[in-house]
Every structure is written in structure tokens, then in C-alpha cells.
């Protein structure tokens, strides 16, 4: 009787054990085919995270140092009208260059890759047509600039004089940062002019819509916040004449 009991319990435990082992084997095998789970990969991922953290910390330090510098400047120029005027000028220039966070009324427009196009046999002939290219962003930004936009950003990346928008495979590189669909373009300026420049018949948005790219907007927004350019503009070769 006692032996029977032992046998049954051990049998049940072995039953559970083998089920677990079989499930585990299956899971591991499947995972290895879809995601490479080697140690080297994990180490690299850790490294990337560490560097990113370092970058964030340094970036925060930079922001606090800038604030400090600003307050020191204010302190130094308090009792001096000429340097106060200079200070104002520096501020103004920084705003124009895109080195400060700005806010104002303007428009927002979202461009997206058309993911449902695969249902349409006509569109699948050339999938390149239904995705957003760097050229599309450049054309839209150009139209906005032409309409007098004072500040433009794409997915949080400020458009400054040194900005380049290039195609790198399936993503777009802007200001050295890779961004992907959806592309949120924000612009501050005269709302009517900006809106009109985009929806004008024969304008670039019409072309994009005809190509079946998903276009949301343009929407007029009263309070748009545009982030500052978070890089550094260095000049090495130009000199004032």
C-alpha cells in the first residue's frame, strides 16, 4: 500500500516534470529561430543602454550648466544697459537659430506610411509609392518655410540651418537622429498662410494623398511647443569678412 502511494506520487511528479521540459524545449527552440538570444547580443544591448544612460546624464548636466550660465549672464549685466542689450540680442539670435524651446500658434501635420495598402492590388505594384520618403518631408518643410514658418520640427527634431534630411534604409535621418513613420511635422507661423500653402490644389499634400500616403491634417493648433535643437552648431571654415 505504501509503495503504491509512493509510486503514484512519483509518477505524477514525473508527469508534470516532463510536460514542463517539453514546453521549455519547444519555447527555447522557437525563440532561437526568431530572436537571436546569444550572450554577445545581450552584452551589446547592455552596452548600448549604458551609453544611452551616460548620454542622458551628460545632456541633463549640459542643460543645467546652460541655465547656470544664463543666470550668471543676467547677474553680470544687471547694471549695464549696453551689455543688457547685447544679452537680449544673444537671446534673440539663439531663438532664431533654434537653440531655445519656443511656443506659438501654428499647424501640425502627420505623414504616415500606408500600411493597409497591401489590400489593394494596384498599390502593391510599387510599395515605394505608399511610404513616406525623405523627399516628401523636404517638400513639406520647404512649403512651410515658403509660407513663413518661424520654427519647424519633425518628430521633435528642430529644423535648423545645418539640418539635413536623408534616407537611410527604412528610416529617415534628420539632425543625425534616425526617425520612422509616423512623421509629425510642427510649424509655428501664420496659421492661415501655413495651412494654405499645404492644402493648395496641386500642392505637395495633394500629390502625397494621390500616392495614397496617409496624411493627417494639417490641423491648426493654437499652442504648439517646439523643442530646441539639441545638437551643437560648430563653424570651422567660415569667417566674417
Amino acid at each position, binding site marked *: 500500500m505504501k509503495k*503504491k502511494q509512493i509510486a503514484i506520487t*512519483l*509518477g505524477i*511528479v*514525473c508527469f508534470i516534470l*516532463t*510536460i514542463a521540459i517539453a*514546453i521549455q524545449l519547444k519555447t527555447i527552440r*522557437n525563440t532561437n529561430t526568431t530572436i537571436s538570444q546569444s550572450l554577445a547580443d545581450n552584452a551589446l544591448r547592455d552596452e548600448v543602454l549604458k551609453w544611452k544612460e551616460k548620454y542622458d546624464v551628460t545632456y541633463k548636466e549640459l542643460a543645467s550648466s546652460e541655465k547656470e550660465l544664463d543666470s550668471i549672464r543676467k547677474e553680470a549685466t544687471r547694471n549695464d544697459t549696453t551689455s543688457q542689450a547685447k544679452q537680449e540680442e544673444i537671446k534673440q539670435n539663439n531663438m532664431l537659430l533654434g537653440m531655445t524651446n519656443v511656443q506659438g500658434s501654428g499647424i501640425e501635420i502627420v505623414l504616415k506610411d500606408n500600411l493597409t495598402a497591401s489590400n489593394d492590388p494596384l498599390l502593391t505594384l510599387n510599395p515605394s509609392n505608399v511610404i513616406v520618403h525623405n523627399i516628401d518631408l523636404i517638400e513639406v518643410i520647404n512649403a512651410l518655410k515658403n509660407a513663413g514658418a518661424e520654427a519647424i520640427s519633425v518628430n521633435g527634431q528642430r529644423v535648423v540651418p545645418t539640418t539635413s534630411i536623408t534616407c537611410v534604409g527604412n528610416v529617415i535621418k534628420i539632425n543625425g537622429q534616425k526617425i520612422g513613420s509616423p512623421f509629425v511635422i510642427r510649424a509655428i507661423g501664420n496659421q492661415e498662410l501655413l495651412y494654405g500653402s499645404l492644402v493648395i490644389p496641386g500642392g505637395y499634400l495633394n500629390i502625397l494623398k494621390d500616392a495614397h500616403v496617409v496624411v493627417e491634417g494639417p490641423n491648426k493648433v493654437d499652442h504648439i511647443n517646439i523643442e530646441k535643437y539639441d545638437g551643437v552648431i560648430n563653424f570651422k571654415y567660415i569667417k566674417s569678412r
Partner: protein
Amino acid sequence: MILIAIVIGCILGAVIGISAPMIPYTYSGYLAIAIIAALDSVFGGLASTVNKNFDLKIFVSGFFGNAILSILLTYLGQKLNVDIYLAAIVVFVGRMFNNLAIIRRYYLEKWTNRNQNQTQEQTTGEEK
């Protein structure tokens, strides 16, 4: 008898396990540690059977308790970024070897005893 039950359990488990659904990769680490705990329990059960002090209550509570504790430890280790599950594995595998040693000794003794008996019987038979 015990061996037959284990074999039947393993076969049934393998058959059902093959057709069982997969679990997400996140949880496979926990399942792995639970497997080690269960394996340890099986060896522990065998060893106690050999020692003739098998207790069903102790065995079942040990089986579930070990598995749950080791899973919790693994979870805690992941949260703390320390590989605590290694400690659980070391303990379980170490105990497995201990239990295996007990089982091995028992059967070796049995075998040598039988051999001795046989030789004794042979010698007594010759004397007669």
C-alpha cells in the same frame, strides 16, 4: 513498481507536453528553474524511498514549496539585477548529486551483498 510509474509518467508527460501550447519567452526562465526544482524533488523522493522514510506530505510540500520559492527568487533577482537563480540551481543540483549518491550506495550494497551470498552459497554447496 516505482520505476514503472516513473516511466509511465514520463511518457504521458512527453506526449501531452509536445501538444501543449508554448509559453512566452519571458516566463521560460521561471519554468526552467521550476524544472530544476521538480527534478530535485524526484531525486529526493527516490532517495527517501531507498532510505525507507518517504513521507507524502513532506514530499508534496517540498515539491511545490521549492518550485515556488525558486521562481520567486528568480523574479526578485531579475528586479534587483542579481542572478539569484544561480544560487537556487547550485543548491538543487548539489542536492541532486547527494541524493544520487544515496541511491547509488544503496543499490551497490544490495548488489555486493547478493554476490557475497551467492559465493557463500556456492562455497557451502561445494563443502556439502
